[in-house]
C-alpha cells in the first residue's frame, strides 16, 4: 500500500510558566492511501497536538523539537527548515491544497463576517489557477456534494444563518475545495448531536467512496472509531501505546490501557455488565513518569514500568503495542 504520510519520532514541547510540557513524545505512524486512521485518546493525551505539530499550527509557546514528517515522499517537517518563515511559506501552500482540515467547532473556523461564498472561493483562487467564476461554480458544486439544499441561494449567506450540522458540512466543503489527498478531522462530530453526528459520519463515508482520500480522524469516541476507521492508534500520555486494525484493537487488544478503555464503554446492544473504570487520572505531562505513562493506573503494573519506557512489540504487520507485559511473557518470568 502506498504511504501518503509518514511521521517518525515526532516530539513536541510547550513552554509554560510552570516548566516544559512534553505533549508529544516519540510518535511515529504512517497513513496509507484510501484509509481512515483513527487516533483515539483522552483529553491531554497529545492527539490534537500531534496533528497541529505536523500541520505547523502550534501556538507560539509550542515547538516541534525533533522528528520527521513526509508527505508523498516530500519532507515537510519543521526540523528540516532553517527558520519559521521558510517553513510557514511552504506550509501555507500545503495546508488546504494537499491537506484539508476539519475542526471540532465550526464556528471558530468559519469567519462570522464573511459570506460562505468568500470563504469557499478564496482558497480555490489562491491554491489553484481557477478564475473567480470557475471557483464560484466549483463552490456550488462542493455545497451540493456535502448535502446543503439550494446551494445557489445559501452560498450568499453568513455562517450564523446555518445550523450546527450545516456549518460542519460547510467546513467539510472548504476542506475538500482543492481536492486534497489527505484530510485531518479533529473531533469533527464532538460538538454535534447524535442524529446530526450520524449524518456527518455518513457524509464522510460517502466522500471516501467517491474520492481517493486518506483521512486521519481524531476522536475520543470509541463508537465513532468502530464505525468509521480502518486502522486505530491509541494515544496516552503523549505516546502511541497501541496501533492496529479496527478488529485487532477491538477484539484482540494488547495494551492494558486499550483493554481498560474498552471495558469502560457500554455496548447498548448487550445486557448490562458492570463498568470497570480505570482508576486515577491521566498523568501530568509537566512531570511525566520516567517509565510507562500508564503505570499509575495500570492493574498489571510491574516494578520495571515505573522506571523504564517499554519497547514496542509487533504482533502482526499492522498491530503493535508497547507494554512490559509482553516482554515478561517472552522472558518467561510469569
Amino acid at each position: 500500500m502506498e504511504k501518503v504520510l509518514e511521521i517518525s519520532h515526532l516530539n513536541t514541547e510547550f513552554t509554560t510558566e510552570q516548566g516544559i510540557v512534553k505533549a508529544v513524545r516519540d510518535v511515529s505512524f504512517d497513513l496509507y492511501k484510501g484509509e481512515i486512521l483513527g487516533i483515539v485518546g483522552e483529553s491531554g493525551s497529545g492527539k490534537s497536538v500531534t496533528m497541529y505539530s505536523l500541520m505547523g499550527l502550534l501556538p507560539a509557546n509550542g515547538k516541534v523539537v525533533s522528528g520527521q514528517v513526509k508527505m508523498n515522499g516530500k519532507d515537510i517537517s519543521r526540523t528540516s527548515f532553517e527558520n519559521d518563515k521558510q517553513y510557514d511559506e511552504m506550509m501555507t501552500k500545503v495546508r488546504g491544497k494537499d491537506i484539508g482540515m476539519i475542526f471540532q467547532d465550526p464556528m471558530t473556523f468559519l469567519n462570522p463576517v464573511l459570506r460562505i461564498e468568500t470563504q469557499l472561493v478564496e482558497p480555490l483562487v489562491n491554491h489553484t489557477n481557477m478564475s473567480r467564476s470557475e471557483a464560484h461554480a466549483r463552490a456550488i458544486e462542493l455545497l451540493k456534494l456535502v448535502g446543503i439544499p439550494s446551494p445557489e441561494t445559501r452560498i450568499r449567506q453568513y455562517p450564523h444563518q446555518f445550523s450546527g450540522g450545516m456549518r460542519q458540512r460547510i467546513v467539510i466543503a472548504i476542506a475538500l475545495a482543492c481536492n486534497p489527498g489527505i484530510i485531518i478531522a479533529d473531533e469533527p462530530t464532538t460538538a454535534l448531536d447524535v442524529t446530526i453526528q450520524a449524518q456527518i459520519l455518513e457524509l464522510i463515508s460517502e466522500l471516501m467512496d467517491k474520492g481517493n482520500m486518506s483521512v486521519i480522524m481524531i476522536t475520543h469516541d470509541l463508537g465513532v472509531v468502530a464505525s468509521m476507521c480502518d486502522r486505530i492508534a491509541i494515544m496516552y500520555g503523549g505516546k502511541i501505546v497501541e496501533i492496529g486494525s479496527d478488529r485487532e484493537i477491538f477484539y484482540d487488544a494488547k495494551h492494558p490501557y486499550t483493554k481498560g478503555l474498552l471495558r469502560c464503554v457500554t455496548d447498548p446492544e448487550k445486557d448490562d455488565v458492570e463498568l470497570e473504570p480505570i482508576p486515577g487520572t491521566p498523568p501530568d505531562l509537566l512531570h511525566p513518569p520516567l517509565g510507562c505513562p500508564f503505570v499509575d493506573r495500570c492493574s498489571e503494573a510491574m516494578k520495571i514500568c515505573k522506571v523504564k519506557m517499554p519497547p514496542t512489540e509487533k504482533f502482526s504487520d499492522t498491530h503493535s503495542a508497547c507494554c512490559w507485559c509482553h516482554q515478561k511473557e517472552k522472558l518467561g518470568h510469569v
Partner: protein
Amino acid sequence: MSDKVILSVEHLKTYFDVTPGMFSKKKIVKAVDDVSFDVYEGETFGLVGESGCGKSSLGRTLVKIYEPVEGKITFDGSDISKLKGKELAGFRKEMQMIFQDPYASLDPRMTVGEIVKEPMDIHNLYATEEEKRDKVVELIKTVGLKPDHIRRYPHEFSGGQRQRIGIARTLALNPKFIVCDEPISALDVSIQAQIINLLEKIQRERGISYLFIAHDLSMVKHISDRIGVMYMGHMVECGSSDEVYRNPHHPYTKALLSAIPIPDPDVAKKRTRIMLQGEIPSPINPPVCCPFCTRCQYATDRCRKEMPQMKQVENSQVACFLYE
C-alpha cells in the same frame, strides 16, 4: 427501588421570554412544554434528548432555579412548585443537583474543604467546626479523594476529580433526590465510568433517587431504570430502559437509537442508520403541532395541525399519532 412515588411532575411548563426589546413582538421559548412523569423512590430516571430539547431546563425547574409557568411538582407528598423562603430552604436539603461542567461548578476562589463544608454552614448542620471538618474528610474519602486534598483549589484537579468534589458537596446535605445534569458529558471515557460507578454505589448505600440527564443514550441505558425521551420541550416517549431501547415506538426514538455509535466494528460497520432529513424548527413561538413533524418520515397532515398526547402503547407511553 420501591413502588413509592417520590417525585411527580404534572403538566409542567417552563417558558422563557426572549423578546429582544420593549417594543418588539413577544418571543417565547417553550423550553419545557406540558411534561408529566413520575420518579419512584430509589430509582434512576434517565432523561435523554439532543441539545436544546429542554432536558436541562426541566432539571433546573425541578431544583427551583427556574420558576415553572404552569404545572405541579409533587416531591415526597408535598407540592413544591410554589415554595418560598424557609420552606424552600428546607426543601433544598432534600433535593440536590450535580452540574454538567466540572470546571465551572466549583467556586475557583474556595478550597475543596470550604466547598464541601459550605452546605453545612448554610444549613447549620453540625454544632462545632471539628464535627464539620470530620464530615468533610469522610465525604472526600467517600468519593475516592485523599484527605490532604482539602486544602487545594479546584483548578489543581482534573475534570473527573472535580466532578467527584461536586458530588461530595451535594452529599453533605444527605439529599433524597439528586438531579444529575449531564454529569459525565464533559469527561473522558475512562473517567465517565468512574463517575457512573460512584453514583451507582452511592445509590445502593443511601437509597437516593436520581434524575439522570444526558445526551449519551448508551450511558443512560446503563444507569437508568426508566427513560424519558424529550424533543423540543415535549416528552415523546417514556418507559423502562429495556423497553425503550429494545422496542422503541416513536420515530424520533428510533432515529436516536440508530444514531448511537456502537463500539464494535463488526456490528457498527454493517448497521444501517436511520438518516433524519429536514431542518430542526426554531424553538421561538413554535406552532401547535407534533414537534417532530418537520423531520419525520411518517408525518401526515394531522401531525402538522394537532399535538399528539402521551398514550399507553404496549409497555411504554408514546406521543405519536402512528399508534392511534
